[in-house]
């Protein structure tokens, strides 16, 4: 039996081959976008921080989509479904239900620990993967919720790094600091920090002379500044959000309070370039142990350039949200599915290393990324410099700080 190859057969074959090759592109163009819930407090007391978070995540989505979307899902684009937690846990939880109805595949947010405790639980009811972007309270990942993941470091890891680096800093300068005063906002985040400092600092040879709590928002820091003057601590350790941190730093300056250092742990403003720019004098030499990116990575440069192009401030909120979205996109890529359970599985087995943070490959244990770590920064001049760990340091610490006189 012979088979003749005529012009018609060749044309038919060629069309079929071309069709097969082109098919993924056509399917890709038709793929419905993958909806991700971005849940942040963009109104209320935490509006500023929440908006920064949102911007970071949106920038990541823009970069991921520009790079071809999720390839294993036919190049499907990621589409953000924006939600507002209104700076209140119950509002955040209600938004989770709305996001579920909007058909999101996963949720990223919601900045504050108090809100995260509520939203992760609400998301668990819908079996929705929830990446906690910033909220550092350790109970977020210790309640056995299999849908909850935290890429950044938790409270325990951050404070451990903060305390170790404080000892290193103090020893390096000839132990100028012996007494410490803790100033904290009185919700879950600040109070937890204050308790931990009171337990851990004495073990490391520091004496905590006073611990002062204040509500958020706090109208006036004069009283607190006066108590600092009376207690005369060598070092101040503040833990509060942006507005209060700025108000506090300004009042300390107004009241001419001079200490050997202000060493914030997860300080609201100490790693915020807006604070450095707008209140430079009050901000000088304030140190912070906080989330920060690794500026040397090539992805980091694309990230920083993207922010600069949109005139968005470079803050840890933007960094963490950008990185979290990178982690989520990688998980979607590997899951190759919009199925919620598959996405959760993919996140749980993540070994993603192509992110902007100084962490190494991702490894979630009970939802917590074990490689996550905080770094120490100090405001020097107009810049936020990294001073610890030495591997990432861009400046040597100014410590003890020059007296304000």
């Amino acid at each position, binding site marked *: 039996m012979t088979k003749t190859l005529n012009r018609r057969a060749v044309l038919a074959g060629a069309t079929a081959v071309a069709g097969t090759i082109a098919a993924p592109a056509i399917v890709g163009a038709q793929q419905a976008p993958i909806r991700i819930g971005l849940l942040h407090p963009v*109104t*209320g*007391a935490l*509006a*500023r921080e929440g908006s920064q978070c949102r911007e970071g995540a949106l920038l990541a989505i823009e970069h991921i989509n520009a790079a071809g979307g999720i390839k294993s899902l036919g190049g499907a684009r990621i589409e953000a479904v924006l939600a507002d937690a*209104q700076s209140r846990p119950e509002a955040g939880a209600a938004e989770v239900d709305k996001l579920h109805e909007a058909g999101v595949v996963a949720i990223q947010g919601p900045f504050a620990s108090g809100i995260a405790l509520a939203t992760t639980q609400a998301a668990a009811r819908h079996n929705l993967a929830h990446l906690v972007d910033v909220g550092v309270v350790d109970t977020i990942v210790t309640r056995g919720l299999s849908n909850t993941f935290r890429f950044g470091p938790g409270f325990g890891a951050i404070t451990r790094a903060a305390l170790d680096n404080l000892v290193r800093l103090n020893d390096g300068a000839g132990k100028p600091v012996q007494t410490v005063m803790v100033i904290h906002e*009185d919700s879950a985040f600040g109070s937890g920090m204050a308790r931990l400092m009171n337990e851990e600092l004495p073990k490391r040879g520091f004496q905590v002379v006073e611990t*002062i*709590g*204040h*509500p958020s*928002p*706090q*109208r*006036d820091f*004069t*009283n*607190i500044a*006066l*108590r600092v*003057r*009376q207690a005369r601590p060598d070092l101040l350790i503040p833990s509060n959000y942006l*507005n209060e941190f700025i108000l506090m730093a*300004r009042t300390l*300056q*107004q*009241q*001419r309070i001079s200490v050997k250092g202000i060493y914030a742990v997860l300080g609201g403003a100490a790693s915020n370039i807006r604070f450095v720019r*707008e209140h430079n*004098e*009050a901000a000088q030499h304030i140190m912070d142990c906080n989330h920060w990116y690794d500026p040397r990575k090539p992805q980091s440069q694309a990230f920083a350039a993207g922010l600069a192009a949109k005139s968005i401030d470079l803050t840890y909120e933007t960094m963490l949200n950008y990185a979290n979205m990178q982690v989520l996109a990688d998980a979607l890529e590997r899951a190759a599915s919009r199925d919620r359970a598959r996405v959760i599985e993919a996140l749980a087995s993540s070994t993603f290393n192509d992110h902007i943070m100084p962490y190494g490959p991702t490894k979630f244990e009970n939802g917590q990324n074990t490689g996550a770590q905080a770094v120490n920064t100090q405001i020097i001049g107009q810049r936020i410099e990294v001073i610890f760990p030495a591997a990432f340091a861009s400046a040597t610490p100014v410590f003890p700080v020059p007296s304000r006189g």
Partner: protein
Amino acid sequence: MELLLPAVLNGLTTGAIYAVVALGLTLIYGVLHIVNFAHGSLLMLALYAVYFLHAATGIDPYAALPILAVGFFALGYVIQRLVVQPVSHGKDQNILMATLGIAIVIDNGALALWSSNTRTIDLPYAFDVVEVLGAFIPLPKAIGFFAALGIAGVLWIAIQRTDLGRAIRAVAKERQGARLVGIRVEHIYAMCFGLGTACVAAAACLLLPTFYVTPQVGYAFVLVAFTTVVLGGMGSFPGALVGGLLLGVVEAVAGLYLGESLGQIGIFVIFILVLLFRPTGLFGAKAA
């Protein structure tokens, strides 16, 4: 003890602002015999006016004081003539509901227009301080204190020495009698509401250099202002001034010794004590 003096001075500067807010409230109460629930919302509105005026034209909050005082006087006059008076039909409880309604409209309008974001203004002299007996008082707070005293003085003279003041006092004491001698009672009502609202505008100008504005900000002050008015004696000017200063000091000192989270308790302890032992308020007997 070395902390007590700075805390008291700081309390006095805060209290002076409370006093200006309370002056407006007590003026409206003294004549109209109503509690103006919209007072806090009008304060919030005035704070936004200061903020936007500064943002748009760069005008200093203190320089904006006369402009806003006149503007808010007109606003208050119009609210009384066009809303409160027609709704009230001469019944006090209706006036109460009318002011509550105005408050709800203003609050939610602000939320819809400007969102709940915190806004502040940054002034070049925000960090300047005045040294008083070893205590550092931020310059804007010192200015606020003396301006508040000045405003209270001007109001006092206006009420005591001018024809308008005499008419206001006449209407406050005896409505029908005042009408019989030819005083236009409705006009006086509206003048009082206008003056009360102008006080709120003045307080806003003094407050914003050291504070912030959100749609909810009025409540933080109006609760203290109500307390001040009752503490000082309803309708009493000296009572509002002394009451405001006293509450500022009590709040600062209580915050210092009880902690910031508990500091507000001091205000209400004093309030309850005064009501128990002097139910008409500190200066209430004279005003009644």
